[in-house]
């Protein structure tokens, strides 16, 4: 399981979903309004609305949630409560490739932390961040059960073992 970060940044979406960036030109907001209108007044409207909104935008950014709140006539904090309760909602955009670095004990003692640092530097994002081009999301994960290959890193479903920090640019090339 991915470990989610402690705080959710309030900054604008930095991905291609554009939910913050293109407020004026983003034609997805009228579509969102239509989704809201479809469910408004029905009991339990919030969850299906958030679900469709996530399909539309890729993530439930603050702008999207505020729009849902005002559209359904409930408070933004209530929407936030529901969107953080269910793990199938994501508040921040996910990249095409999810990179998960194991920080289990075995990986840690074999230098997984340096691997994370190298990834941060190479991708110019923090842990749990997503690159501007929407390609990579960097996460740290608990033991993947491949301790013999420590330190271990997953990219999508591919397992990379015995990773050394200096190999990172080379490995990432395959996914660019």
């Amino acid at each position, binding site marked *: 399981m991915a470990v989610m970060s*402690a*705080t*959710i940044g309030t900054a604008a979406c930095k991905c291609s979903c554009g939910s913050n960036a293109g407020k004026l030109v983003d034609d997805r907001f009228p579509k969102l309004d239509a989704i809201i209108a479809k469910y408004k007044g029905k009991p339990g409207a919030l969850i299906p609305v958030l679900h469709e909104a996530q399909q539309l935008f890729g993530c439930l950014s603050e702008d999207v949630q505020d729009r849902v709140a005002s559209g359904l006539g409930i*408070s*933004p*904090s209530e*929407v*936030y409560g529901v969107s*953080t*309760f269910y793990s199938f909602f994501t508040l921040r955009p996910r990249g095409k490739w999810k990179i998960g670095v194991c920080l289990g004990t075995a990986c840690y003692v074999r230098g997984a932390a340096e691997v994370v640092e190298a990834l941060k530097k190479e991708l110019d994002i923090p842990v749990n961040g997503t690159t501007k081009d929407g390609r990579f999301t960097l996460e740290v994960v608990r033991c993947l059960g491949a301790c013999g290959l420590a330190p271990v890193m997953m990219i999508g479903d591919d397992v990379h073992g015995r990773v050394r920090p200096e190999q990172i640019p080379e490995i990432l090339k395959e996914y660019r």
Partner: protein
Amino acid sequence: MDTARAKPKVKLTIDGREVEIEQGATVLEAARKAGIDIPTLCYHPAVGPSGACRVCIVEVEGARTLVASCVYPVAEGMVVRTNTAAVRAARKTVVELLIAGHPQDCLSCERNGKCELQALARNLGIRKVRYNISDKEHREPDTSSPSIVRNPDKCVLCGRCVTVCRDIQGVGALSFAYRGRRTLVTPSFEHGLGEAKCTSCGQCSAVCPVGAIVEKDDTGVVWDALDDPEKHVVVQVAPAVRAALGEEFGMPAGTPVTGKIAQALHMLGFDAVFDTQFAADLTIMEEGHEFIERLNRRGVLPLVTSCSPGWIRYCEQFHPEFLDHISTCKSPQQMMGAVIKSYYAKIKGIDPSKIFSVSIMPCTAKKYEAKRPEMRTSSAPSQDVDAVLTTRELARMIRAAGIDFANLEDGEFDSPLGISSGAGTIFGVTGGVMEAALRSVYEILTKKTLGDVRFEAVRGFDGVRHATIDIAGTQVRVAVVHGLGNAGRFLAGTEDSPDRYHFVEIMACPGGCICGGGQPISLDPAVRQLRASVLYREDERKPIRKSHENVEVRRLYDTFLGQPGSELAHRLLHTAYGPDAARLAREDRAHSAAFGRQPMSAAGV
């Protein structure tokens, strides 16, 4: 009582005692009726049960598990045990788990000695905590609001604040987020309350059982001012404070402590001790005048009162379309602030910039109000009110000074701004502003003297009350609303259209200022009534009970302001709302700067 409609009763046995209670009651209510105390944590009589904490568990014969008594309904013939070994052990586990994840910070906590978690630990005899929860995520305290501070690390997730804010106040600034061990009470996207749509009403802080939501402590700046020989430190006290402060010192709810407050404030070293009730009388003069003007000139009606900054903030954030209706009068606190740094400074020959003006309020929203940029009208380079302390903070200062409050002899408020009528006194309770206004508006418009000054129809605690009063041939329709949830419903016009009324009083807090967010914390549902009766009794005893008969208010007009609604009165005592409020204030100051003078100097102040 209408016995025909009374609910059928059921009989049950609790700890061997037979109890009779209406159907639909909870086991907890039945137990309390029988004098059996079941410990609780999330349950609050004014907020209602949620079943979140499981501290109130009991054994019910036939039930498979222990049940939460605060939500479990009574039934005929039910047999309940509240004090078996299994119940005691389970309760202890629940509380130990709460403590295990809680900062061990009591000695430096605002709620030390007045904390429900402490009390539980004490009452359940917890000596050792068998659990260790060390990986609870730490969160920094949220200090973004000028009124209240949230410390999520101390939150026991009882949900009272969430329910109060959403259901009673209709605001919904706080919700539960995440789940399991990460569960958190927070505004949307974990913003600070200062950035969220929050009215600063402080009702969340009044129901929080622990130190997780507290008033912002401003006692430090007040101590500093009192210690500064250069400063002339003036204090004003709101009416509701005298109806409740005694509770902080172990006096029974409903004990009036007006004289003791005046005495204590003198002992703390304030140079002048004034009464916000004076400014309440002044408010009635201005607001009454405004009402008569709007009535005669077909201005925007209904006129809605403006004394409650929580209500103002609510209207600005949620119903900006309604702002035109709100009286342009400042609240009594801000009127007093403006009068102190202008009129009082002038008659005493004190440089307004040497005055440090403190107010003691039942209200956390007043802290926010005093900081609004437009609340700066004197020639001093400071806000009209420099610091606002809640009733709870004043109690803290009195304790710190070692004053034996409960045994103090009575002191007096100082002249001239300590003189007030009974109309000013009842401002502290829902319906009081309306009643005070009616006393004066009636006499001014009819030129007759009221035989009985009481307007019973606007008293009481129904969420919305209304009355029609014949004033000089006009059927004046008035309504009184308290609690922001009620205000929201009233404005939405679902039950009743606001347009039907001429004059509406709205207060943010349920019960009015006597139950403001800064008042002593109480779990007793009777306090509201008891505090209200203090103010109504004081009104009865006052020689002057109508604002327009306050001699010092008259003198203020005769020697300084001119008439109600005069240009100077407008400059000092009136304000604007919405995004424009700050702009107007900025322009006013920019204008003064451009012309090399302060806003007040044009008026000769």
